[in-house]
């Protein structure tokens, strides 16, 4: 029974770590399936995390904070679209530039506005999303296995975790069962064909990037107003890149991407758990080894040693309409 409890707690931690990854990876999916490389997930999340914490602190409402986070992330996504779609700029450079600008701008503004060394003041009470207890969670806690799992693992998260969980089927539905999704997938594979069919490629890509901004905004807000209780400089700490890795690991498909996020989050939770623990046979596994594991796995996948990841065909190339 004790092992089971440890396992449930481990999965519980996994869910909390996976939430921003899932949201950011779904965000990246819309951008990349529409043919725009997005290494700026990191910057958008960081910008949203700052905006959410700042707005939540000033207004005292986590929901307004979330709106602020989404707005900033969508504005940054709009900038990415403006550079890559309107001006046919290099998509990697644009994403890079956004990451660097945001990494500098957030602590600068935080320092100037809040005077706490590049952080926002700590959020309390209604300023942040608190955990929800699902109905009957306490009543069924004593039922072995199922009840315990329900009370510990399913119940007791904040609303954004459930939103992330819901985002996967919703994104999958949008991508595979709606006209918009079909067009996004088509424009990432063959923009010429989409253009021939009378659909404006640039509008479509702008729309896809707005969805990216929206989802990234939730992911960033989660970091500062739900998972944490303030904005700290560089609080994304590579999560945007990890989400990108998960997206590639999931071969740009919603459900496999979600599992990749869970896998990466699980390694993270496991690493926190295994710190300094001697395992039988292998001894203590270095923390850094487990930290590097998601990246190593992604490289192996990209190299075609584990499966094969085939990116959207038109990705990274600006579409220039023939005249």
């Amino acid at each position, binding site marked *: 029974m004790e092992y089971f409890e440890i396992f449930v707690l481990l999965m519980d931690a996994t869910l909390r770590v996976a939430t921003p990854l899932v949201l950011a990876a779904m965000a990246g999916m819309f951008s990349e399936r529409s043919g725009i490389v997005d290494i700026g997930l990191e910057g958008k999340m960081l910008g949203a995390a700052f905006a959410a914490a700042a707005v939540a602190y000033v207004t005292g409402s986590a929901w307004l904070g979330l709106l602020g986070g989404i707005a900033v992330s969508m504005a940054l996504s709009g900038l990415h679209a403006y550079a890559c779609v309107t001006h046919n700029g290099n998509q990697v450079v644009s994403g890079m530039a956004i990451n*660097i600008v945001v*990494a500098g*701008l957030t602590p600068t503004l935080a320092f100037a506005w809040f005077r706490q060394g590049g952080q926002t003041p700590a959020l309390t009470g209604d300023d942040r999303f608190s955990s929800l207890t699902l109905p009957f969670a306490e009543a069924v806690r004593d039922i072995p296995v199922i009840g315990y799992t329900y009370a510990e693992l399913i119940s007791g998260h904040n609303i954004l975790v459930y939103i992330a969980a819901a985002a996967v089927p919703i994104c999958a539905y949008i991508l595979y069962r709606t006209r918009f999704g079909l067009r996004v997938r088509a424009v990432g594979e063959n923009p010429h064909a989409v253009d021939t069919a009378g659909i404006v490629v640039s509008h479509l890509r702008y729309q896809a990037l707005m969805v990216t901004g929206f989802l990234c905004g939730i992911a960033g807000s989660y970091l500062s107003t739900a998972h944490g209780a303030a904005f700290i400089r560089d609080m994304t700490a590579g999560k945007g890149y990890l989400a990108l890795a998960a997206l590639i690991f999931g071969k740009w498909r919603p459900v496999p991407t979600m599992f990749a996020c869970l896998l990466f989050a699980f390694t993270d939770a496991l690493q926190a758990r295994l710190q300094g623990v001697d395992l039988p046979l292998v001894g203590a596994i270095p923390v*850094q*080894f487990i*930290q590097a594991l998601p*990246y190593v796995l992604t490289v192996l996948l990209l190299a075609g040693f584990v499966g094969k990841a085939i990116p959207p065909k038109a990705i990274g190339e600006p579409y220039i309409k023939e005249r």
Partner: protein
Amino acid sequence: MSDTSVKFGSPAKVPAWVNLVLVPLVNLLAAFLLSGVVILIIGDNPLQAMEVLIYGAFGYEEALGYTLYYTTNFIFTGLAVAIAFHCGLFNIGAEGQAMIGGLGVGLVALYLDVLPFALVVPIAILAAALFGGFWAAVPAYLQAKRGSHIVITTIMFNFIAASVLTYLLVEVLIAPGGQSPESREFAEHTWLPFFHNFLPLPETPLNISFIFALLLCVGFYYLMWHTRWGYEIRVTGQNETAAKYAGISPARNIILAMIISGALAGFVGVNEILGVHHRLILEFTGGFGFVGIAVALMGRNHPVGIFLAALLFGALYQGGSELAFEMKNINREMVIVIQGLIILFSGALEHMFRPTIENFFKKRSSSAAVEA
């Protein structure tokens, strides 16, 4: 009609200085203007900030020493990114290659310090090149032979490099009895001479790797435009199919260009580890690899441009730390904002001002031709 007459439909020539000087300057100006707006928003005077920045970067001998010390790193990473660009590759992994290059330098300085200065320094430089080159060769091989995209693999390799370095410093190379993840200090005879050791200058981190960087600029020019290797790399970058038909192997050149790129990035370790810190530490790369992208973009992949761009970023780095002292609302991160905006305007938005400027000069040159 004179020779200057323009045939109908043929592209009007834009003067070279427009392309090489005016357009980059306009982009730079846009980045500075927007930075000024940011400074206004946080409640300081942008003009005063500019003054502090320039004085802090060039105003006195010590500042100049620091500026040139940062410039050295940016030359290394700028050249590294540029050679990859020439081959049509985006090396976003200069940061990781610099880390591993520094690791190579550190290992040599730690374990081969029985050798005299004249031997240990060249070996350390060679180690930086080999380690950095190896770290770039793996993604290059995967791009050339297995078709995995180099941007993604080099990003992943940055993270893996950070983990490797952290592991080694925490578990293996840590100084005996030390608390923080650093190696022991290197023996003094392995240190690179500082400029203030042989010139009457104030004490700064500027060391002879600056000269090495300048030599590499010359070498880079010679390699790219006066050797077969450079020619083949450029052909591969401009048109892979044409290269194939000309009997040039794209795979070979992709790997070659990336190895040179990684070696150049690895030299950051020579400046930082062997030149300044004299011990292996974490995070000595300080984002130089990423800024190298901006340096290469601004410098238009030419060594002269790269030197000037590196000087600009070196000045920003040094002047920026002065800003944090002098201005009440600005902290060190303001420099990162300016850097990011420069990358945005001279990289991602490079096509924003260019057509307008080019049209202006095309019109002028064609109307001048009509008058003649």
